[in-house]
């Protein structure tokens, strides 16, 4: 079947099987920033924005994106570039496998809530797991980014 979806501002037509998940479609279509880390929607490295809201692309059927907008990190390069400066300053990126998904979640958080509390940041990002950093450096980096320090 064919699906019409706007990816990173561009209209796309994807040729898919009805059971295909968005994560696999995106990787097949060369949006390689979207990573796969688990089998049951529990790690967050596949995060993309669906009409501006972070979702796990591994658990959304591509068919359901018909007429919607999807954003990957390729679509927020400027923001990711800037956020990565804050991550770099804190050593908050190690293997980097979690960071494209994180960048999308942080971007969406910023759009929704320009002045979140520490608890709100943690709550919003809790589904974005990171096994490398121990989280605190990421938290400081995200806080500084949101406060534009």
């Amino acid at each position: 079947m064919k699906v019409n979806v706007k990816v990173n501002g561009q209209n796309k037509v994807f040729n898919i099987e009805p059971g295909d998940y968005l994560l696999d479609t995106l990787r097949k279509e060369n949006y390689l920033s979207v990573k796969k880390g688990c089998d049951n929607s529990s790690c967050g490295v596949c995060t993309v924005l669906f009409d501006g809201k972070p979702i796990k692309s591994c658990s959304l059927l591509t068919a359901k994106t018909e007429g919607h907008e999807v954003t990957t990190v390729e679509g927020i390069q400027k923001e990711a570039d800037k956020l990565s400066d804050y991550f770099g300053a804190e050593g908050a990126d190690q293997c980097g496998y979690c960071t494209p998904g994180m960048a999308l979640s942080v971007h969406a958080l910023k759009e929704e809530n320009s002045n979140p509390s520490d608890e709100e940041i943690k709550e919003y990002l809790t589904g974005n797991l990171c096994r490398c950093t121990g989280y605190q450096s990421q938290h400081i980096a995200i806080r500084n980014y949101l406060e534009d320090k």
Partner: protein
Amino acid sequence: MKVVKHALPSVDGKGLMMGRPAYTDDLADPNSLIVKVLRSPHAYAKIVKIDTSKAEALEGVEIVLTYKDFDRRPHTRAGQGFPEPSPYDKFVLDQWVRYIGDETACVAAVDEETAQAALKLIEIEWDILEPILDFETALDNEILIHPEPEIFENFPIGFDPKRNLAAAYSMEVGNVEDSLKECDVVLEAQFFTQAQAHAAMEPHTVNARMDYQNRLVLYTSTQAPFHIRRIVSQSLDFPMSRIRVIKPRVGGGFGGKQHIHGELLVSTVTIKTGKPAKMVYTRKEVFESSFQRHPMRLDIKLGAMKDGTLKAINCHILSDTGAYGEHALTVFMVAGAKVLPLYNKVDSVKFYGDVVYTNHTSAGAYRGYGAIQGNFAIESAIDMLCEKLGVDPIEFREKNMMLKDETSPIFAIMGEGTEGTAMNMESCELGYCVSRGQELLKWKEKYPRVELADSKVRGVGMAIAMQGSGIPYIDMASATVKLNDDGFYNLLVGATDIGQGSDTVLAQIAAEALETTLDKIIVYSSDSDLTPFDTGAYASSTTYVSGNAVFKAAMDMKRAIVKEGALALGVKVEDIEYDGVVLKAGDKEITLKALSNRLYYSEDQKQLMITNSYFGTKSPPPFMAGFAEVEVDTETGEIKIVEYVSVVDCGTPINLALAKGQVEGGIVQGIGMAVYEEVLYTKTGKSINNNFLNYHIPTRKEINKLTTEFAESYEESGPFGAKSVGEIGIDTPPAAIANAVYNAVGVRIQTLPITPEKILAGILANKAKK
């Protein structure tokens, strides 16, 4: 120092966050065959008959592999120095399967769905055998997990498969039995540590293709690319000269990727079909069919005098290596070798035990590598002993622990599967770490407990730890520095960046030595055709061993530049002054930029490219003191880690931000092991928690406050004074948290993890006693 000891951003972090294709699966040929493995549903069984004809007949299936397609060539999947101290007890595919999830057969097909469908069409008649699932019953059990005749050990490691023994070891300094008799107080305690999953975010991934020279090119998410090349060649009998292994960016390792995973099967598919192929583990496969931390039972006896002098340590360990013996001996030995020297003033110390096979997922290398297990037992037992003695546990440690310029006889006796190397502690700021950590946590105000409102109690506990910096006389690393026109450099290293930031750290060392800036060092690592050798990212070796190789090569390059500068200026080498930018002799001068252009294009043309290598003659330990403050709910047993303070002596932290990242990442994995994580099995040996919903790694909600500092310390033998920092962070949380829980509520947990259920049971038992 201008570049070293600064918090510089990593060289790759930005590109990775921006989503540039960089990991193994991103770089697979889009036409790759999809390789899938049929995994054993039985903990122990023999294939009586296997029929793959239906699978082969399925449209889109390219090849099906079973044990019949492979010569019986025993090897180990452990990526270690060669010859390995791990038994050669694994076949690529075997007629026997030894745990649920073991490799039974393999399919390569045009797409995932076809591969999955083909797996279901493979028909197997099994002879189901009774497994061993309790490691305490494995030794001398009548069931034999490895009865096959072909397997062997490379040199004596205590391997005795007729007793289900993968390895065994014992050593004694002095006479522990006699010393214990002389002691005023003797403490005996038993501890259990659990299997922990590595849970790196990137699943094990490998892709292969034949290149235009008909050579096999593997991209693989590995910590040890050169070992991978060797093992692929050995086990498939394929010439090493026709294999290229490239390690792209790797999404975390923690020891889990210090093993063969899909490389042998994917290589076989590509060699046999000539087609590109790839394998990406599912998360379930990562949990069930890769590796995990060795579960251990540790029996400790400590003897001390009333005045608080520790006299004797007796440590017996039974370790569970699971179905295969990767890292069996060495992890076991590190549980002693990198814990016991902390208390170097004892009269006698004994360390011995066995590593047994069971029908569980194989255990293997995992950050801490035995030291975390040993640390939990010894550092818990020290607190227990102090209570018996009525002495303060910190004063006791300060009195008995390793200090600068001291040594331990254990260093010479215990190495990595072989004899060790004697060494003095030329850098050791453990005393500072202990006192600074108390200040940071406000220990004196909080010890042992503070009662809050609503049934909540806070307690503090601590532990000290050490690790190593590479494996002396075994680990070798090398580096090549190449000068380009315009005066910038390539740094080629075999060292393996798996996310810990070694490309950045090594580039910083090169930049500092060459007196240039980080942007002038273009680092490329881990490509068996293009970069020089390195044993790999393990054993806390990269900053120290690979760093020393980089330092040597960079200093050689600087001398070569000065020599060429002298030639260009027509002066003697001794007359040159060089600051990394301009070469001066009296009133003559030439910039590096001009000199490098001259060398490329105008006069005395040549390529300056210099390789040097390093292997350690000792393994200077980093040290740390870890302090935990926990809050326990006395009604539910629930536990919260309020704060974790780490004060670390890793010599010079080459990159302050990345070194801190190593410590904090390790601490949080250690907190995971202490309170949240445990690989669980059913009675039949099936994994219960093979996904992130059921296996809880810490999320950002559980992490409240990490305070991390470095001691001022300088290790003469390290590059710019550095020691390692990759593993030390993980060692202290289990013991420090167990001690804190005890101080909070009087419940001593000796079996990890420290769960609310165990704490509550302890609280209730204490109440019942009163």
